[in-house]
Protein backbone atom coordinates (compact mmCIF):
# COMPACT_ATOMS: atom_id res chain seq x y z
CA UNK A 1 0.00 0.00 0.00
CA UNK A 2 1.60 3.25 -1.04
CA UNK A 3 1.44 6.65 0.65
CA UNK A 4 -1.28 7.93 -1.67
CA UNK A 5 -3.61 5.07 -0.74
CA UNK A 6 -3.04 5.69 2.96
CA UNK A 7 -3.77 9.39 2.48
CA UNK A 8 -6.92 8.55 0.54
CA UNK A 9 -8.12 6.10 3.20
CA UNK A 10 -7.51 8.83 5.77
CA UNK A 11 -9.50 11.34 3.71
CA UNK A 12 -12.48 8.97 3.34
CA UNK A 13 -12.25 8.13 7.03
CA UNK A 14 -12.35 11.79 8.03
CA UNK A 15 -15.26 12.54 5.71
CA UNK A 16 -17.25 9.53 6.90
CA UNK A 17 -16.57 10.22 10.56
CA UNK A 18 -17.93 13.74 10.13
CA UNK A 19 -21.08 12.25 8.63
CA UNK A 20 -21.63 9.28 10.92
CA UNK A 21 -20.11 10.03 14.31
CA UNK A 22 -22.67 11.51 16.70
CA UNK A 23 -25.09 12.15 13.83
CA UNK A 24 -28.72 12.81 14.71
CA UNK A 25 -29.83 9.96 12.50
CA UNK A 26 -27.92 7.49 14.63
CA UNK A 27 -29.64 8.39 17.89
CA UNK A 28 -31.02 4.91 18.32
CA UNK A 29 -27.55 3.36 18.06
CA UNK A 30 -26.35 5.54 20.92
CA UNK A 31 -29.45 4.58 22.86
CA UNK A 32 -28.59 0.90 22.31
CA UNK A 33 -25.18 1.54 23.82
CA UNK A 34 -26.38 3.80 26.61
CA UNK A 35 -29.16 1.45 27.77
CA UNK A 36 -26.99 -1.02 29.74
CA UNK A 37 -24.78 1.80 31.04
CA UNK A 38 -27.89 3.48 32.46
CA UNK A 39 -29.12 0.16 33.84
CA UNK A 40 -25.86 -0.66 35.63
CA UNK A 41 -25.63 2.93 36.88
CA UNK A 42 -29.12 2.59 38.37
CA UNK A 43 -28.07 -0.75 39.86
CA UNK A 44 -25.04 0.90 41.49
CA UNK A 45 -27.06 3.79 42.89
CA UNK A 46 -29.93 1.56 43.97
CA UNK A 47 -27.77 -1.05 45.68
CA UNK A 48 -25.56 1.57 47.30
CA UNK A 49 -28.57 2.32 49.49
CA UNK A 50 -28.44 -1.27 50.85
CA UNK A 51 -25.01 -1.46 52.52
CA UNK A 52 -25.49 -5.07 53.65
CA UNK A 53 -26.08 -6.08 50.07
CA UNK A 54 -28.77 -8.38 48.75
CA UNK A 55 -26.42 -10.40 46.60
CA UNK A 56 -22.76 -11.28 46.30
CA UNK A 57 -20.07 -9.92 43.98
CA UNK A 58 -20.12 -13.26 42.19
CA UNK A 59 -23.80 -12.73 41.39
CA UNK A 60 -22.98 -9.42 39.75
CA UNK A 61 -20.19 -11.01 37.71
CA UNK A 62 -22.66 -13.65 36.47
CA UNK A 63 -25.29 -10.95 35.84
CA UNK A 64 -22.78 -9.04 33.71
CA UNK A 65 -21.98 -12.21 31.76
CA UNK A 66 -25.71 -12.60 31.06
CA UNK A 67 -26.01 -8.93 30.13
CA UNK A 68 -23.05 -9.22 27.77
CA UNK A 69 -24.33 -12.33 26.02
CA UNK A 70 -28.07 -11.63 26.00
CA UNK A 71 -27.91 -7.94 25.29
CA UNK A 72 -24.61 -6.86 23.80
CA UNK A 73 -23.82 -9.81 21.54
CA UNK A 74 -27.34 -10.94 20.62
CA UNK A 75 -28.98 -7.53 20.30
CA UNK A 76 -27.07 -4.31 20.96
CA UNK A 77 -23.90 -4.80 18.93
CA UNK A 78 -25.69 -6.83 16.25
CA UNK A 79 -28.37 -4.22 15.55
CA UNK A 80 -25.98 -1.33 16.18
CA UNK A 81 -23.52 -2.65 13.58
CA UNK A 82 -26.42 -3.25 11.23
CA UNK A 83 -27.42 0.41 11.56
CA UNK A 84 -23.88 1.71 11.17
CA UNK A 85 -22.40 -0.50 8.47
CA UNK A 86 -25.33 -1.27 6.18
CA UNK A 87 -25.93 2.46 5.96
CA UNK A 88 -22.43 3.26 4.72
CA UNK A 89 -23.19 2.44 1.08
CA UNK A 90 -26.97 1.94 1.02
CA UNK A 91 -27.56 5.25 2.83
CA UNK A 92 -25.58 7.09 0.16
CA UNK A 93 -27.52 5.30 -2.55
CA UNK A 94 -30.76 6.54 -1.02
CA UNK A 95 -29.49 10.07 -0.62
CA UNK A 96 -28.11 9.92 -4.15
CA UNK A 97 -24.64 11.00 -3.14
CA UNK A 98 -22.61 7.88 -3.86
CA UNK A 99 -21.66 9.06 -7.34
CA UNK A 100 -19.61 11.89 -5.82
CA UNK A 101 -17.27 9.26 -4.41
CA UNK A 102 -17.33 7.21 -7.60
CA UNK A 103 -16.39 10.26 -9.69
CA UNK A 104 -13.25 10.96 -7.67
CA UNK A 105 -9.91 9.45 -8.74
CA UNK A 106 -10.10 6.90 -5.96
CA UNK A 107 -9.88 3.13 -6.12
CA UNK A 108 -13.12 1.49 -5.03
CA UNK A 109 -11.19 -0.79 -2.67
CA UNK A 110 -9.84 2.29 -0.90
CA UNK A 111 -13.37 3.62 -0.58
CA UNK A 112 -14.57 0.33 0.96
CA UNK A 113 -11.66 0.26 3.41
CA UNK A 114 -12.13 3.92 4.34
CA UNK A 115 -15.82 3.51 4.93
CA UNK A 116 -15.31 0.29 6.89
CA UNK A 117 -12.70 1.91 9.11
CA UNK A 118 -15.00 4.87 9.74
CA UNK A 119 -17.88 2.56 10.72
CA UNK A 120 -15.55 0.47 12.84
CA UNK A 121 -14.23 3.55 14.65
CA UNK A 122 -17.77 4.61 15.51
CA UNK A 123 -18.83 1.10 16.55
CA UNK A 124 -15.73 0.57 18.70
CA UNK A 125 -16.04 3.96 20.34
CA UNK A 126 -19.70 3.43 21.14
CA UNK A 127 -19.92 -0.23 22.11
CA UNK A 128 -16.52 -0.94 23.68
CA UNK A 129 -16.91 2.18 25.83
CA UNK A 130 -20.40 1.03 26.79
CA UNK A 131 -19.16 -2.46 27.76
CA UNK A 132 -16.30 -1.06 29.84
CA UNK A 133 -18.52 1.45 31.63
CA UNK A 134 -21.21 -1.19 32.33
CA UNK A 135 -18.60 -3.55 33.76
CA UNK A 136 -17.18 -0.82 35.98
CA UNK A 137 -20.61 0.27 37.20
CA UNK A 138 -22.25 -3.09 37.87
CA UNK A 139 -20.27 -3.95 41.01
CA UNK A 140 -19.31 -0.43 42.04
CA UNK A 141 -21.69 -0.58 45.01
CA UNK A 142 -19.34 -3.11 46.64
CA UNK A 143 -16.83 -0.25 46.98
CA UNK A 144 -13.31 -1.32 47.89
CA UNK A 145 -14.11 -5.00 47.38
CA UNK A 146 -14.90 -4.36 43.72
CA UNK A 147 -11.76 -2.27 43.23
CA UNK A 148 -9.82 -5.13 44.77
CA UNK A 149 -11.57 -7.58 42.46
CA UNK A 150 -10.58 -5.49 39.44
CA UNK A 151 -7.01 -4.62 40.36
CA UNK A 152 -5.93 -7.70 42.31
CA UNK A 153 -8.43 -10.33 41.17
CA UNK A 154 -9.65 -11.62 37.81
CA UNK A 155 -11.66 -8.41 37.14
CA UNK A 156 -9.16 -6.62 34.92
CA UNK A 157 -8.57 -9.72 32.83
CA UNK A 158 -12.33 -10.25 32.45
CA UNK A 159 -12.80 -6.61 31.49
CA UNK A 160 -10.07 -6.97 28.88
CA UNK A 161 -11.70 -10.08 27.40
CA UNK A 162 -15.14 -8.47 27.32
CA UNK A 163 -13.71 -5.39 25.58
CA UNK A 164 -11.87 -7.63 23.10
CA UNK A 165 -14.98 -9.70 22.38
CA UNK A 166 -17.05 -6.53 21.87
CA UNK A 167 -14.38 -5.18 19.51
CA UNK A 168 -14.25 -8.47 17.58
CA UNK A 169 -18.05 -8.48 17.36
CA UNK A 170 -17.90 -5.01 15.80
CA UNK A 171 -15.20 -6.20 13.37
CA UNK A 172 -17.11 -9.36 12.39
CA UNK A 173 -20.65 -8.00 12.18
CA UNK A 174 -19.33 -4.81 10.59
CA UNK A 175 -17.82 -6.76 7.70
CA UNK A 176 -21.02 -8.80 7.31
CA UNK A 177 -23.29 -5.75 7.21
CA UNK A 178 -21.02 -3.67 5.00
CA UNK A 179 -21.25 -6.49 2.47
CA UNK A 180 -25.04 -6.68 2.92
CA UNK A 181 -25.38 -2.93 2.36
CA UNK A 182 -23.32 -3.16 -0.80
CA UNK A 183 -24.88 -6.27 -2.31
CA UNK A 184 -28.56 -6.11 -1.36
CA UNK A 185 -31.14 -3.48 -2.15
CA UNK A 186 -32.85 -4.33 1.13
CA UNK A 187 -30.14 -5.34 3.61
CA UNK A 188 -32.88 -6.09 6.15
CA UNK A 189 -33.65 -9.48 4.61
CA UNK A 190 -30.02 -10.56 4.73
CA UNK A 191 -29.72 -9.18 8.25
CA UNK A 192 -32.79 -11.13 9.37
CA UNK A 193 -31.29 -14.34 7.95
CA UNK A 194 -28.00 -13.67 9.75
CA UNK A 195 -29.89 -12.89 12.98
CA UNK A 196 -31.88 -16.10 12.88
CA UNK A 197 -28.74 -18.09 12.07
CA UNK A 198 -26.84 -16.52 14.97
CA UNK A 199 -29.85 -17.00 17.27
CA UNK A 200 -30.20 -20.74 16.64
CA UNK A 201 -26.45 -21.29 16.99
CA UNK A 202 -26.62 -23.19 20.34
CA UNK A 203 -28.99 -25.74 18.78
CA UNK A 204 -27.02 -26.34 15.59
CA UNK A 205 -24.78 -29.37 14.99
CA UNK A 206 -21.12 -28.78 15.86
CA UNK A 207 -20.01 -28.32 12.27
CA UNK A 208 -22.68 -25.71 11.48
CA UNK A 209 -22.06 -23.88 14.75
CA UNK A 210 -18.64 -22.93 13.47
CA UNK A 211 -20.07 -21.04 10.48
CA UNK A 212 -21.12 -18.10 12.61
CA UNK A 213 -19.67 -15.13 14.44
CA UNK A 214 -21.36 -15.73 17.78
CA UNK A 215 -19.79 -19.17 18.28
CA UNK A 216 -16.26 -17.74 18.33
CA UNK A 217 -17.32 -14.74 20.39
CA UNK A 218 -18.95 -16.98 23.01
CA UNK A 219 -15.82 -19.09 23.17
CA UNK A 220 -13.85 -16.01 24.14
CA UNK A 221 -16.23 -14.83 26.90
CA UNK A 222 -14.56 -15.22 30.33
CA UNK A 223 -17.79 -16.31 32.07
CA UNK A 224 -20.16 -18.74 30.34
CA UNK A 225 -23.94 -18.38 30.61
CA UNK A 226 -25.98 -21.61 30.32
CA UNK A 227 -29.08 -21.69 28.10
CA UNK A 228 -32.14 -21.61 30.39
CA UNK A 229 -34.74 -24.42 30.35
CA UNK A 230 -36.77 -25.59 28.44
CA UNK A 231 -34.40 -24.81 25.53
CA UNK A 232 -31.42 -26.26 27.41
CA UNK A 233 -32.42 -29.79 26.39
CA UNK A 234 -32.01 -28.88 22.72
CA UNK A 235 -28.50 -27.44 23.12
CA UNK A 236 -25.76 -29.35 21.36
CA UNK A 237 -22.47 -28.93 23.18
CA UNK A 238 -19.42 -28.16 21.13
CA UNK A 239 -15.88 -27.73 22.33
CA UNK A 240 -15.03 -24.05 22.78
CA UNK A 241 -12.53 -22.73 20.27
CA UNK A 242 -9.24 -21.63 21.85
CA UNK A 243 -8.47 -17.91 21.70
CA UNK A 244 -5.49 -18.38 19.39
CA UNK A 245 -7.86 -19.84 16.79
CA UNK A 246 -10.96 -17.71 17.47
CA UNK A 247 -9.31 -14.27 17.29
CA UNK A 248 -7.32 -14.74 14.07
CA UNK A 249 -10.21 -16.77 12.65
CA UNK A 250 -12.69 -13.96 13.12
CA UNK A 251 -10.25 -11.39 11.76
CA UNK A 252 -9.63 -13.62 8.74
CA UNK A 253 -13.38 -14.02 8.07
CA UNK A 254 -13.82 -10.25 8.33
CA UNK A 255 -10.91 -9.74 5.93
CA UNK A 256 -12.40 -12.20 3.42
CA UNK A 257 -15.77 -10.46 3.55
CA UNK A 258 -14.10 -7.08 3.11
CA UNK A 259 -12.13 -8.33 0.10
CA UNK A 260 -15.33 -9.65 -1.41
CA UNK A 261 -17.04 -6.30 -0.73
CA UNK A 262 -14.13 -4.50 -2.37
CA UNK A 263 -14.37 -6.73 -5.46
CA UNK A 264 -18.13 -6.10 -5.57
CA UNK A 265 -17.58 -2.36 -5.23
CA UNK A 266 -15.23 -2.41 -8.21
CA UNK A 267 -18.04 -3.72 -10.38
CA UNK A 268 -20.76 -1.57 -8.81
CA UNK A 269 -22.81 0.68 -11.04
CA UNK A 270 -25.27 3.25 -9.79
CA UNK A 271 -28.81 3.53 -11.05
CA UNK A 272 -30.67 5.77 -8.65
CA UNK A 273 -33.86 5.33 -10.68
CA UNK A 274 -34.28 1.69 -9.62
Amino acid sequence: MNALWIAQVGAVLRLELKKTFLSRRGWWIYLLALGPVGLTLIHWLFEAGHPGGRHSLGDDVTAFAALFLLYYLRAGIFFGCMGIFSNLFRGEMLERTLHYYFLTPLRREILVVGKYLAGLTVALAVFVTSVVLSFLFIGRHFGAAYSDYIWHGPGLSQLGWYALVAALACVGYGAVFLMCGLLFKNPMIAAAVVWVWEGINPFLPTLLKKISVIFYLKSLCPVQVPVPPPFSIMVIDAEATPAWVAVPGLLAVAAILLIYSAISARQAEINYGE
Partner: protein
Amino acid sequence: MAVYKKTYRPYEGGLTAPLTRFLVIPRYAFEELHRSRFLTFFFLATYIYPLICALIIYVQHNASALSLLGVQGANRLISINVVFFMGFLGWQSMLALFLAAFAGPGQISPDLANNALSLYLARPFSRLEYVLGKISVLVILLSLMTWIPGLLLFSLQGYLEGWDWMTANARLASGIFLGAWVWIIVLSLLALALSAWVKWKPAAGALMFGVFFVAAGFGATVNAVQRTKWGHLLNISNLIGSVWVELFQGANKTTSGTVFFRVPEGQELPLWCCCSALAALCAVCLYMLARKIRGAEVVR
Protein backbone atom coordinates in the same frame (compact mmCIF):
# COMPACT_ATOMS: atom_id res chain seq x y z
CA MET B 1 -59.04 25.94 -25.66
CA ALA B 2 -56.81 28.71 -24.36
CA VAL B 3 -54.88 27.87 -21.21
CA TYR B 4 -56.38 30.73 -19.22
CA LYS B 5 -59.84 29.27 -19.83
CA LYS B 6 -58.90 25.99 -18.15
CA THR B 7 -60.28 26.81 -14.75
CA TYR B 8 -61.13 24.49 -11.87
CA ARG B 9 -63.79 21.91 -12.52
CA PRO B 10 -64.78 19.46 -9.82
CA TYR B 11 -64.64 15.71 -10.44
CA GLU B 12 -67.94 14.61 -11.90
CA GLY B 13 -67.48 10.84 -11.97
CA GLY B 14 -68.92 8.33 -9.53
CA LEU B 15 -67.52 8.19 -6.00
CA THR B 16 -66.69 5.01 -4.11
CA ALA B 17 -69.10 4.40 -1.23
CA PRO B 18 -67.77 6.14 1.92
CA LEU B 19 -67.81 2.94 3.97
CA THR B 20 -65.62 0.98 1.57
CA ARG B 21 -63.43 3.89 0.45
CA PHE B 22 -60.51 2.83 2.62
CA LEU B 23 -60.33 -0.48 0.73
CA VAL B 24 -58.93 1.36 -2.29
CA ILE B 25 -55.54 1.46 -0.54
CA PRO B 26 -55.18 -2.30 0.05
CA ARG B 27 -56.25 -2.97 -3.52
CA TYR B 28 -53.20 -1.16 -4.87
CA ALA B 29 -50.97 -2.22 -1.98
CA PHE B 30 -51.56 -5.91 -2.64
CA GLU B 31 -50.68 -5.41 -6.30
CA GLU B 32 -47.37 -3.90 -5.24
CA LEU B 33 -46.67 -6.53 -2.60
CA HIS B 34 -47.44 -9.25 -5.13
CA ARG B 35 -44.68 -7.86 -7.34
CA SER B 36 -42.10 -8.76 -4.70
CA ARG B 37 -41.10 -12.36 -5.36
CA PHE B 38 -39.52 -12.67 -1.94
CA LEU B 39 -42.69 -11.61 -0.13
CA THR B 40 -44.88 -13.87 -2.26
CA PHE B 41 -42.60 -16.81 -1.62
CA PHE B 42 -42.39 -16.05 2.09
CA PHE B 43 -46.16 -15.71 2.38
CA LEU B 44 -46.70 -19.04 0.65
CA ALA B 45 -44.05 -20.65 2.84
CA THR B 46 -46.00 -19.63 5.94
CA TYR B 47 -48.63 -22.22 4.99
CA ILE B 48 -46.21 -25.11 5.41
CA TYR B 49 -46.79 -25.35 9.14
CA PRO B 50 -50.62 -25.21 8.93
CA LEU B 51 -50.47 -27.93 6.29
CA ILE B 52 -48.34 -30.10 8.55
CA CYS B 53 -50.81 -29.49 11.39
CA ALA B 54 -53.74 -30.43 9.15
CA LEU B 55 -51.90 -33.58 8.14
CA ILE B 56 -51.30 -34.49 11.79
CA ILE B 57 -54.99 -34.00 12.60
CA TYR B 58 -56.03 -36.06 9.60
CA VAL B 59 -53.60 -38.89 10.30
CA GLN B 60 -54.64 -38.96 13.97
CA HIS B 61 -58.22 -39.73 12.94
CA ASN B 62 -57.45 -42.13 10.17
CA ALA B 63 -56.72 -45.64 11.43
CA SER B 64 -55.84 -46.93 7.96
CA ALA B 65 -53.34 -44.12 7.45
CA LEU B 66 -51.76 -44.92 10.80
CA SER B 67 -51.47 -48.59 10.02
CA LEU B 68 -50.10 -47.77 6.56
CA LEU B 69 -47.39 -45.68 8.19
CA GLY B 70 -46.83 -48.37 10.80
CA VAL B 71 -47.28 -45.92 13.67
CA GLN B 72 -50.44 -47.17 15.39
CA GLY B 73 -49.49 -45.50 18.67
CA ALA B 74 -48.93 -42.08 17.07
CA ASN B 75 -52.29 -40.74 18.23
CA ARG B 76 -50.97 -40.96 21.77
CA LEU B 77 -47.74 -39.23 20.79
CA ILE B 78 -49.21 -35.89 19.68
CA SER B 79 -52.36 -34.70 21.39
CA ILE B 80 -54.61 -32.20 19.67
CA ASN B 81 -55.12 -29.93 22.63
CA VAL B 82 -54.32 -26.47 23.90
CA VAL B 83 -50.55 -27.00 23.47
CA PHE B 84 -51.06 -27.98 19.83
CA PHE B 85 -53.16 -24.92 18.96
CA MET B 86 -51.03 -22.50 21.00
CA GLY B 87 -47.94 -23.91 19.33
CA PHE B 88 -49.56 -23.32 15.96
CA LEU B 89 -50.41 -19.74 16.87
CA GLY B 90 -46.90 -19.17 18.25
CA TRP B 91 -45.16 -20.30 15.05
CA GLN B 92 -47.49 -18.44 12.77
CA SER B 93 -47.28 -15.29 14.87
CA MET B 94 -43.49 -15.30 14.71
CA LEU B 95 -43.69 -15.61 10.93
CA ALA B 96 -46.25 -12.81 11.00
CA LEU B 97 -43.68 -10.61 12.74
CA PHE B 98 -41.22 -11.25 9.93
CA LEU B 99 -43.84 -10.53 7.29
CA ALA B 100 -44.91 -7.34 9.05
CA ALA B 101 -41.26 -6.26 9.29
CA PHE B 102 -40.81 -6.79 5.55
CA ALA B 103 -44.15 -5.48 4.30
CA GLY B 104 -45.12 -2.94 6.98
CA PRO B 105 -42.38 -0.31 6.60
CA GLY B 106 -43.24 0.19 2.95
CA GLN B 107 -46.78 1.27 3.71
CA ILE B 108 -46.46 4.88 4.83
CA SER B 109 -42.81 5.88 4.46
CA PRO B 110 -42.87 6.28 0.64
CA ASP B 111 -45.91 8.58 0.89
CA LEU B 112 -44.18 10.75 3.46
CA ALA B 113 -40.76 10.66 1.80
CA ASN B 114 -42.25 11.83 -1.51
CA ASN B 115 -44.67 14.33 0.05
CA ALA B 116 -47.57 12.38 -1.43
CA LEU B 117 -49.80 12.44 1.63
CA SER B 118 -51.48 15.66 0.52
CA LEU B 119 -52.51 13.89 -2.71
CA TYR B 120 -54.50 11.41 -0.64
CA LEU B 121 -55.94 13.92 1.77
CA ALA B 122 -56.88 16.40 -0.97
CA ARG B 123 -59.47 13.86 -2.06
CA PRO B 124 -62.62 12.96 -0.09
CA PHE B 125 -60.48 10.73 2.07
CA SER B 126 -59.87 11.38 5.76
CA ARG B 127 -56.77 10.69 7.86
CA LEU B 128 -58.67 7.93 9.63
CA GLU B 129 -59.57 6.29 6.32
CA TYR B 130 -55.95 6.56 5.21
CA VAL B 131 -54.72 4.82 8.37
CA LEU B 132 -57.52 2.25 8.16
CA GLY B 133 -56.61 1.53 4.55
CA LYS B 134 -52.94 1.12 5.36
CA ILE B 135 -53.55 -0.99 8.45
CA SER B 136 -56.03 -3.21 6.62
CA VAL B 137 -53.21 -4.33 4.30
CA LEU B 138 -51.35 -5.80 7.25
CA VAL B 139 -54.47 -6.98 9.05
CA ILE B 140 -55.65 -8.98 6.02
CA LEU B 141 -52.21 -10.50 5.39
CA LEU B 142 -51.63 -11.40 9.02
CA SER B 143 -55.16 -12.76 9.45
CA LEU B 144 -54.57 -15.07 6.51
CA MET B 145 -51.53 -16.39 8.33
CA THR B 146 -52.84 -16.72 11.85
CA TRP B 147 -56.43 -17.01 12.95
CA ILE B 148 -58.00 -18.04 9.62
CA PRO B 149 -55.88 -21.20 9.21
CA GLY B 150 -56.12 -21.67 12.98
CA LEU B 151 -59.89 -21.75 12.90
CA LEU B 152 -59.82 -24.00 9.84
CA LEU B 153 -57.64 -26.45 11.77
CA PHE B 154 -60.02 -26.23 14.71
CA SER B 155 -62.95 -26.92 12.38
CA LEU B 156 -61.14 -29.89 10.85
CA GLN B 157 -60.44 -31.34 14.26
CA GLY B 158 -64.04 -30.65 15.32
CA TYR B 159 -65.37 -32.27 12.16
CA LEU B 160 -63.31 -35.40 12.70
CA GLU B 161 -63.73 -35.56 16.47
CA GLY B 162 -67.39 -34.61 16.69
CA TRP B 163 -69.63 -31.87 18.00
CA ASP B 164 -68.97 -32.72 21.65
CA TRP B 165 -65.27 -31.99 21.23
CA MET B 166 -66.07 -28.66 19.61
CA THR B 167 -68.36 -27.51 22.39
CA ALA B 168 -65.98 -28.73 25.08
CA ASN B 169 -63.06 -26.89 23.47
CA ALA B 170 -64.81 -23.76 22.26
CA ARG B 171 -62.34 -21.77 24.33
CA LEU B 172 -59.57 -22.87 21.96
CA ALA B 173 -61.39 -21.30 19.02
CA SER B 174 -61.98 -18.04 20.87
CA GLY B 175 -58.36 -18.14 22.06
CA ILE B 176 -57.06 -18.51 18.51
CA PHE B 177 -59.30 -15.72 17.24
CA LEU B 178 -58.82 -13.18 20.03
CA GLY B 179 -55.18 -14.07 20.66
CA ALA B 180 -54.32 -13.60 17.01
CA TRP B 181 -56.17 -10.29 16.89
CA VAL B 182 -54.27 -8.93 19.89
CA TRP B 183 -51.01 -9.78 18.15
CA ILE B 184 -52.17 -8.44 14.77
CA ILE B 185 -53.24 -5.10 16.22
CA VAL B 186 -49.99 -4.61 18.15
CA LEU B 187 -47.91 -5.65 15.15
CA SER B 188 -49.82 -3.55 12.60
CA LEU B 189 -49.82 -0.40 14.70
CA LEU B 190 -46.13 -0.74 15.44
CA ALA B 191 -45.27 -1.37 11.80
CA LEU B 192 -47.26 1.66 10.64
CA ALA B 193 -45.92 3.94 13.36
CA LEU B 194 -42.33 3.03 12.54
CA SER B 195 -43.09 3.33 8.85
CA ALA B 196 -44.36 6.87 9.45
CA TRP B 197 -41.33 7.96 11.45
CA VAL B 198 -38.49 6.22 9.64
CA LYS B 199 -38.28 7.08 5.98
CA TRP B 200 -35.81 4.38 4.94
CA LYS B 201 -37.74 1.13 4.64
CA PRO B 202 -34.98 -1.29 5.71
CA ALA B 203 -34.25 0.90 8.73
CA ALA B 204 -37.91 0.83 9.73
CA GLY B 205 -37.94 -2.96 9.38
CA ALA B 206 -34.77 -3.24 11.43
CA LEU B 207 -36.24 -0.97 14.07
CA MET B 208 -39.26 -3.23 14.26
CA PHE B 209 -37.03 -6.20 14.98
CA GLY B 210 -35.19 -3.98 17.39
CA VAL B 211 -38.33 -3.09 19.31
CA PHE B 212 -39.10 -6.79 19.74
CA PHE B 213 -35.74 -8.41 20.22
CA VAL B 214 -33.57 -5.64 21.63
CA ALA B 215 -36.27 -4.66 24.11
CA ALA B 216 -36.67 -8.33 25.06
CA GLY B 217 -32.90 -8.65 25.53
CA PHE B 218 -32.85 -5.46 27.55
CA GLY B 219 -35.76 -6.69 29.66
CA ALA B 220 -33.87 -9.93 30.37
CA THR B 221 -30.82 -7.94 31.45
CA VAL B 222 -32.98 -5.71 33.66
CA ASN B 223 -34.18 -8.91 35.33
CA ALA B 224 -30.66 -10.30 35.66
CA VAL B 225 -29.08 -7.11 36.99
CA GLN B 226 -31.90 -5.92 39.25
CA ARG B 227 -33.05 -9.43 40.34
CA THR B 228 -36.62 -8.64 39.39
CA LYS B 229 -39.27 -9.93 37.01
CA TRP B 230 -40.59 -6.53 35.90
CA GLY B 231 -38.12 -6.40 33.04
CA HIS B 232 -40.57 -8.69 31.25
CA LEU B 233 -42.73 -5.61 30.74
CA LEU B 234 -40.26 -4.65 28.00
CA ASN B 235 -40.63 -8.04 26.35
CA ILE B 236 -43.60 -7.88 23.96
CA SER B 237 -43.62 -11.61 23.26
CA ASN B 238 -43.81 -12.23 27.00
CA LEU B 239 -46.76 -9.85 27.35
CA ILE B 240 -48.54 -11.50 24.45
CA GLY B 241 -47.79 -14.93 25.92
CA SER B 242 -49.43 -13.94 29.21
CA VAL B 243 -52.55 -12.73 27.40
CA TRP B 244 -52.69 -15.91 25.33
CA VAL B 245 -52.40 -18.16 28.39
CA GLU B 246 -55.42 -16.39 29.86
CA LEU B 247 -57.39 -16.50 26.60
CA PHE B 248 -56.68 -20.16 25.93
CA GLN B 249 -56.84 -21.57 29.42
CA GLY B 250 -58.49 -19.09 31.76
CA ALA B 251 -58.08 -20.09 35.39
CA ASN B 252 -57.05 -23.71 34.62
CA LYS B 253 -53.50 -23.03 33.50
CA THR B 254 -51.57 -26.07 32.37
CA THR B 255 -48.89 -24.40 30.22
CA SER B 256 -46.80 -21.27 30.55
CA GLY B 257 -47.25 -20.03 27.00
CA THR B 258 -45.92 -21.40 23.76
CA VAL B 259 -42.94 -21.36 21.47
CA PHE B 260 -41.53 -17.78 21.15
CA PHE B 261 -44.24 -16.53 23.51
CA ARG B 262 -43.36 -18.36 26.69
CA VAL B 263 -43.62 -16.83 30.14
CA PRO B 264 -40.86 -18.20 32.41
CA GLU B 265 -42.41 -20.15 35.26
CA GLY B 266 -42.51 -18.24 38.52
CA GLN B 267 -41.94 -14.94 36.68
CA GLU B 268 -45.50 -14.33 35.57
CA LEU B 269 -46.67 -10.73 35.75
CA PRO B 270 -50.23 -9.80 36.69
CA LEU B 271 -52.47 -9.94 33.64
CA TRP B 272 -53.64 -6.36 34.06
CA CYS B 273 -50.01 -5.18 33.90
CA CYS B 274 -49.47 -7.07 30.63
CA CYS B 275 -52.69 -5.69 29.14
CA SER B 276 -51.83 -2.16 30.29
CA ALA B 277 -48.34 -2.39 28.78
CA LEU B 278 -49.76 -3.56 25.45
CA ALA B 279 -52.42 -0.85 25.54
CA ALA B 280 -49.75 1.76 26.30
CA LEU B 281 -47.68 0.52 23.35
CA CYS B 282 -50.70 0.79 21.04
CA ALA B 283 -51.49 4.28 22.38
CA VAL B 284 -47.91 5.42 21.71
CA CYS B 285 -48.12 4.03 18.17
CA LEU B 286 -51.42 5.80 17.56
CA TYR B 287 -49.96 9.06 18.87
CA MET B 288 -46.94 8.64 16.58
CA LEU B 289 -49.26 8.06 13.63
CA ALA B 290 -51.44 11.06 14.52
CA ARG B 291 -48.34 13.27 14.67
CA LYS B 292 -47.10 12.24 11.23
CA ILE B 293 -50.26 11.65 9.20
CA ARG B 294 -51.11 15.25 8.41
CA GLY B 295 -52.09 16.96 5.21
CA ALA B 296 -49.59 19.78 5.72
CA GLU B 297 -46.20 19.68 7.33
CA VAL B 298 -44.28 22.64 8.73
CA VAL B 299 -40.66 22.29 7.64
CA ARG B 300 -38.26 24.36 9.71
